[in-house]
């Protein structure tokens, strides 16, 4: 067995070994340079962000102690009474949570419809006019770059307090986010059905309806469900700026130090978000699972 390995002559071996060493050294240098840049960036950001380890160390005990103080006092003997006491506002809170979910739902649906309408205009394989594609893309980018809560702040001034600004803010943000994702899906479709419809004399709308939509619909629905999930989380804090939902009660409880209310509302939000995650994940798996696997 040993004889099967060819021994290279010394000079050739040396050249190869040197080459290897040089390659390793070059890689190490690159890594070191990257590390130095990273550390410099961290230092700059820490200075900018007023990172203060001393303040952190001095105040860190407040973090666990906050969680301890929002933990309700439950004892086994009077468990039901304690639970009832903790969730005294359950009726109001579940109502507000339902509002939150509905804000997310209505906003997502409106936004998804807008994104659906706009994504075809943003797809370079469907629209010949470069300007139209460019303008639509920038518009979608604007919609998703401005955070939804900023839109909510503006809309609260325009439409007054209540769920309406929240719904509109979520709808606009969703239109931007989904419009982009949808357009990417549309640009990746198979061209053949398009050619088929075009060659049998279909106009642009027929092309979209019969060649594009059937290919992309399941992907669209899956993305929209994912957005709904994200929007439920977003809607939970819309109340911070007065745009409806459970957030209003949460921020009030936090600001007024109603400790057990904070934990009760947070727990409700977490459970709701988890349930929605679980549900949408199941539906999404069924929607795209068959194709991908």
């Amino acid at each position: 067995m040993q004889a099967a390995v060819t021994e290279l002559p010394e000079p050739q071996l040396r050249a190869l070994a040197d080459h290897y060493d040089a390659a390793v050294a070059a890689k190490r240098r690159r890594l070191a340079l990257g590390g130095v840049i990273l550390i410099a960036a961290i230092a700059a950001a820490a200075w900018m962000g007023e990172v203060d380890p001393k303040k952190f160390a001095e105040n860190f005990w407040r973090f666990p102690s906050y969680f301890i103080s929002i933990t309700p006092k439950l004892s086994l003997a009077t468990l039901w009474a304690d639970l009832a006491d903790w969730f005294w506002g359950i009726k109001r809170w579940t109502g507000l949570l339902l509002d939150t979910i509905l804000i997310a739902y209505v906003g997502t649906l409106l936004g998804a419809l807008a994104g659906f309408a706009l994504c075809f205009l943003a797809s370079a394989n469907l629209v010949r006019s470069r300007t139209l594609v460019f303008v639509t893309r920038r518009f979608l980018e604007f919609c998703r770059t401005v955070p939804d809560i900023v839109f909510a702040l503006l809309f609260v001034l325009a439409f007054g307090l209540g769920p309406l600004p929240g719904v509109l803010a979520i709808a606009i943000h969703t239109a931007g986010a989904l419009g982009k994702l949808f357009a990417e899906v549309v640009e990746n479709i198979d061209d053949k059905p398009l050619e088929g419809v075009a060659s049998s004399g279909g106009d642009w709308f027929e092309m979209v309806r019969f060649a594009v939509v059937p290919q992309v619909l399941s992907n669209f629905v899956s993305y929209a469900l994912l957005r709904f999930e994200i929007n439920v989380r977003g809607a939970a804090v819309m109340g911070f700026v007065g745009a409806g939902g459970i957030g209003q009660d949460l921020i009030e409880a936090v600001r007024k130090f109603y400790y057990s209310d904070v934990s009760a509302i947070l727990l409700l939000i977490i459970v709701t978000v988890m349930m929605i995650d679980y549900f949408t994940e199941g539906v999404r798996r069924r929607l795209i699972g068959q194709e991908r696997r």
Partner: protein
Amino acid sequence: MSTARRTLSFGDESGIAARFPEQFRPNWINRAKLIGGLTLAAAIFVFGLIRLEIPFDRLFGGIGRLIEFLGLMLPPDPGSWQLAQVYLHAMGETLAIAFLGTLGGALLAFPVSFLAARNVLRIRPLQLLTRRLLDAVRGIDTLIWALIWVGVVGLGPFAGILAVMCSDFGNFGKLFSEAFEAADEKPSEGVKATGGSHVHGVRFGMLPQVVPILASQVLYFFESNTRSATIIGIVGAGGIGLQLAEQIRVLEWQKVSFLILMILVTVAAIDWISSKLRFAIIGRKAVG
């Protein structure tokens, strides 16, 4: 021309229908499912509109007011050079929050994601527990974390960094452990076949596969956190959001539009840089 072609192709409609009957027979089950689904979606929508008591009468007045605001926003103007400097500083704070928050969250999540991955640490109950913990952390919005941290370390960007760190901890923990689970088993089997332990298998078989994926996810989150860090100031956790919320509340529309423009430009720049880096790390194709 096109109508003519279409008429021509449908000239023998009955003949085509006779030859391909299954294509022309409506599939009632699928149709019922579709109609049922659409009706349900529409019903929930209508229920939502009624329950939320959407004031349609305010809709048009509001749109009018929005257009009025839009008019007042032009041209974007920071007011003075001093204020522009303040805003630039706030933008820097926002970037610092996003950068350190993402990095810290990733560093915290990395060890924990080993616990949450099914194929790394094979203690099922511990893994499920870690998963649920990560889910709970993720279920709380960054803004809520910011609220909590403002209570702990006081107002300012430091609270924002800690808040972004916390919510990213949950996100990264989940994503990282999923990346571990999706990794190819063969390299670690190879390491074990040459006499390595399970730890060696993870270190030399699995990590080299997933590190580029993790790096690209971290960069992607840096991008999206730049967006979310712009609003964290609304609850007092530093950055540009504080200025933005303030200027919106005092109706300084030209300053508002200036701030929004600044956010748009910065986010676009970060997007560009990080997508360049992402492609350099992971190659153009496999961006996950």
